[in-house]
């Protein structure tokens, strides 16, 4: 049962399994364990990031495509819900219609971009998505009648999810059972369902073809898989999941603007989480998102503290002020691409494999699915040369 839920793609490392269990349980009981708005907000952000990053992993980790337009689809989802809710008034129909419209828009847009630019080469796709995403961001901030421009849109969610709606008079086990509580669990259920669905996709025969294309697209094509078609499908799927993540974000924040869902920093965060968590392992998105969002939410306070201490040292205080958070992020990103390409999950799996030599050997032969500890695939795709 459990195995089937995880699509037979088990963590394959005791430490990883433990970390995942802690993450899932922690998220499931956040309203009870950590009361307070900030903790709840951080947990909700973690869940949105899990879906978003896992969908990007589908693209970067499993198919080996770099896209810079992932936040665009995220933004489309968020704007879909936001715009529909402002126009039609709060209600489930508005959410459904907004999400449906956003999904359709993402589908068409990703299909066009994919068919248009995925036939050439990865680098081409990266550049085109960068251009399209920046154009979309300008569009979103220019069409202020529609999207609220730079100010964004604040809107009301369906009544059942509004914070004013009380379900129980008394707090239950320290958590007040209100609309926020319900929204949180809506988010939780949606996140679990979407992540399991993505696990299903990457472990299906379709997912295997994607990995084959990542490793060696020439060979995959020779076996008879049209790599353009598979790449485009992967792009479309990733876009749809990102769009759903955007809708979840909008529902939680009851607000959407260009900075919350379209900013380029967000794209960088996604890239960093995928790399740190471990590419080509959906679990990497879970672990990475938890660590990253926690660090982002609480480390910045620490940096502020440090900067206040060092206020007399001219350049250093500049460097560790919380505004320079991105600098350290960038450094961490570069260093992890160099020295840590398989990410946390890859490392843990490798460790587990080395510790259990008997099972380990049998797995080396069959190349663990999901690229386990595999480094970034070089363009020539020679990672698995010796095993074939």
């Amino acid at each position, binding site marked *: 049962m459990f195995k089937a839920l995880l699509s037979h793609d088990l963590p394959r490392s005791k430490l990883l399994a433990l970390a995942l269990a802690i993450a899932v349980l922690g998220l499931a009981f956040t309203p009870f364990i950590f009361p307070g708005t900030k903790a709840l907000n951080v947990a909700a952000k973690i869940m949105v990031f899990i879906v978003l990053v896992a969908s990007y992993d589908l693209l970067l980790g499993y198919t080996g495509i770099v896209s810079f337009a992932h936040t665009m689809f995220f933004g489309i989802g968020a704007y879909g819900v936001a715009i529909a809710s402002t126009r039609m008034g709060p209600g489930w129909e508005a959410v459904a219609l907004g999400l449906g419209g956003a999904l359709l828009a993402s589908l068409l847009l990703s299909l066009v971009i994919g068919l248009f630019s995925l036939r*050439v080469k990865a680098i081409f796709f990266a550049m085109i998505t960068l251009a399209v995403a920046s154009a979309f961001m300008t569009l979103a901030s220019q069409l202020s009648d529609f999207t609220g421009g730079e100010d964004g849109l604040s809107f009301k969610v369906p009544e059942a999810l509004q914070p004013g709606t009380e379900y129980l008079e008394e707090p239950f086990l320290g958590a007040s059972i209100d609309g926020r509580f319900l929204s949180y669990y809506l988010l939780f259920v949606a996140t679990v369902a979407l992540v399991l669905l993505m696990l299903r996709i990457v472990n299906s025969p379709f997912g295997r073809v994607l990995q084959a294309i990542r490793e060696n697209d020439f060979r995959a094509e020779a076996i008879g898989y049209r790599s353009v078609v598979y790449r485009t499908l992967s792009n479309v799927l990733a876009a749809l999941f990102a769009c759903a993540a955007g809708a979840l974000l909008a529902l939680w924040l009851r607000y959407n603007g260009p900075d919350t869902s379209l900013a380029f920093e967000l794209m960088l965060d996604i890239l960093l989480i995928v790399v740190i968590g471990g590419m080509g392992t959906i679990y990497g998105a879970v672990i990475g998102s938890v660590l990253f969002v926690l660090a982002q939410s609480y480390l910045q306070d620490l940096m502020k503290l440090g900067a206040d201490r060092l206020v007399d040292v001219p350049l250093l205080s500049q460097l560790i002020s919380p505004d320079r958070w991105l600098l350290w992020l*960038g*450094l961490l990103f570069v260093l992890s*691409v160099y020295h840590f390409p398989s990410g946390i999950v890859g490392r843990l799996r490798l460790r587990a494999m080395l510790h259990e030599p008997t099972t380990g050997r049998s797995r080396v032969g069959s190349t663990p699915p999901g690229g386990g500890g595999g480094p970034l695939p070089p363009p020539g795709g020679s990672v698995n040369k010796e095993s074939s």
Partner: protein
Amino acid sequence: MTTRTLPTTPAQAAQSAEPVPQARFDKLPLLLLAGLMLAALPLIGSASSWATLTVAGLAMGLIIFIIASGLTLVFGLMDVLNFGHGVFIALGAFVATTVMGAMGAWTDNPSLLANLVAVGTACLAGMLAAAALGLVFERVMVRPVYGMHLKQILITMGGMIIGEELIKAVWGPQLIAMPLPEGLRGSLLFGDVAVEKFRLVAVVLGLLVFMALLLVLNRTKLGLLIRAGVQDREMVESLGYRIKRLFVGVFVGGSALAGLGGVMWGLYQQGVTPQIGGQVNTLIFIVIIIGGLGSTLGCFVGALAVGLMANYCGFLAPKVALFSNIALMVAVLLWRPQGLYPVTNR
């Protein structure tokens, strides 16, 4: 390409005095450029505003070309796409603000010569700074990931972020004004055509860079090696040339050009923000995609087309102007999926 060297037969040996067969020059993209200019004339209506816009477009296009030429050469020669190219632009521009701030006496001087000296010094300083950064960037960021596209994209993107943040740490995150020197402000009137003086400077400088690049690429041994490297890297290597060293040179040169372009772009916008690199980056990507990855001439035509298009659209339909570049790119790619001047082996 259509160039083919046939096996030498006696008959041909006799004809060897004849010039080497040349690839037929592809004029269509140049005609496209001319067509774009002509098509805009009736749309705009007045000839004088058309001329003003055209000069503005050419100036913008040439500045973009200065920036993009290095990127496209680096890609063509070594198959390295540098997503961090924007850092060099930003660094050049910021160094120039400092230099021009320090040379206040020269920039406020009404004499044109003194102003040009100030701008020239700023350009030189920007180029030097960008070149130095390019040397470091190549060594630290790019060299370890040769031949790995995916990592290249990620690493250079990370380098771009780090560079941008360091610039913010040094110069501060806000916009720094970069006023034009006294003598370069205002416009010259030719009949009723008003041409801003600085745009003329930009056009002249851009053309100079273009000519210099053409000269170096087509008339020197260095250029021959670079062009040969773009065509077939391994062959050049096997003939005993150290293409890696050549590549470092091209990378540093390209960075210096980006720095120069950054100074010009800052003066063109009359202010610089740390985000300038990212903004111009998308523009130059569009340009080199339009031109064909790795092609210098294509980059030139693409840059001019983008500059002209942006200015015409800005005049005719300001809202559309934001997307004119994307539209242009889509149109060009539908016509020639590999860009205007595709490089054969890519």
